[in-house]
């Protein structure tokens, strides 16, 4: 059978929920392992003193994108049946900026705030509370922002389509950029350590 298994009808909704719990457990575990349940650690990324956020995120993206590429190339995964978040150019441009502003003020993002709260941090609980407040507020102003939020839709629109390169070539570029970013991050961290 070709994956995705759930899409192919191999799993009941109840088994799907067991998978949700298991994947969530692993996700939360790895976030905490790296120290991403700590607002101090995440904030250091933005003060350029600790690049854990960049390393974890970029490594996860590279790992997953290479895995998806090879599984589909080997015929084990039907990429056409994996849901790719749809592109809405302006809402994601503006939403991303608003999100980033909130992120640096809060010191935690939604997933890491859950981990922070679970490990006893009061500021993590407050960020989760703030997120819910913001989501309620968005719901209240939805009639006003609805038009903008659904503007400039591009459907499933991927980087290979954008730059006119093959899937494999796009990933090669991504891997090279990631390796350069890791090198730069290590260099900046070691320079700081030497200065301290």
């Amino acid at each position: 059978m070709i994956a995705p298994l759930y899409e192919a009808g191999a799993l009941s909704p109840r088994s799907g929920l067991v998978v949700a719990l298991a994947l969530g457990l692993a996700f939360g575990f790895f976030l905490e392992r790296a120290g991403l349940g700590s607002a101090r650690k995440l904030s250091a990324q933005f003060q350029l003193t600790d690049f854990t956020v960049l390393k974890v995120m970029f490594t996860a993206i590279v790992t997953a994108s290479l895995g998806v590429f090879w599984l589909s190339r080997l015929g084990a995964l039907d990429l056409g049946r994996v849901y790719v978040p749809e592109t809405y150019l302006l809402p994601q441009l503006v939403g991303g900026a608003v999100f980033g502003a909130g992120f640096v003020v809060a010191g935690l993002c939604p997933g890491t705030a859950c981990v922070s709260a679970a490990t006893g941090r009061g500021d993590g609980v407050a960020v989760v509370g703030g997120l819910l407040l913001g989501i309620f507020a968005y719901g209240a102003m939805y009639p006003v922002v609805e038009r903008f939020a659904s503007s400039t839709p591009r459907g499933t629109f991927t980087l290979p389509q954008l730059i006119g390169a093959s899937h494999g070539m796009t990933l090669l570029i991504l891997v090279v950029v990631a390796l350069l970013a890791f090198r730069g991050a290590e260099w900046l961290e070691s320079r700081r350590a030497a200065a301290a």
Partner: protein
Amino acid sequence: MSSTSGGAAYGSPYLAGVGIGLVLIAAYVVMGHGVGVSGALTSVAGTVTTVATNAPASAAWRGYAAPGFAALLSDWFVVEVIGITLGGLASAALAGRLRRETERGRGVGVSRRVAFALGGGAIMGIGARLAKGCTSGQALTGGSLLSVGSWIFIATAFAAAYLIAPLVRREWR
């Protein structure tokens, strides 16, 4: 740098990244979709709103609001976020990093830190709704599936965060 004020030192960020990458691959292979957190919070908020107003879900909550609180527990992303919370708890417990505290910079009071956390969280919530996802659903999931919109999200989120970072620098001294 990675002093944890007690408890074991943090693990390698690269290994943790590979672990999260494998979680994403497993999600694509088994479920056909990635992970997310802000969507689950939207389901909670939408369910609270519709239950409280006793009205059918308005356009703002369509696709998110569950018919009741019990039904929230059959929402894939809500269960996944419960898992994230328990996974974080388990990892911290194993490493001796469970700690009742409010993380903040020296000279910053608890109430000031909580105000920033609440306010920043609220701004983030609005941004995530507008962008249709957060660091999990857009950056990690959409990023690894090479979605253009997700990479726009990553770019503007980090640009805005770096632009504002000097203003909140003293919160962490």
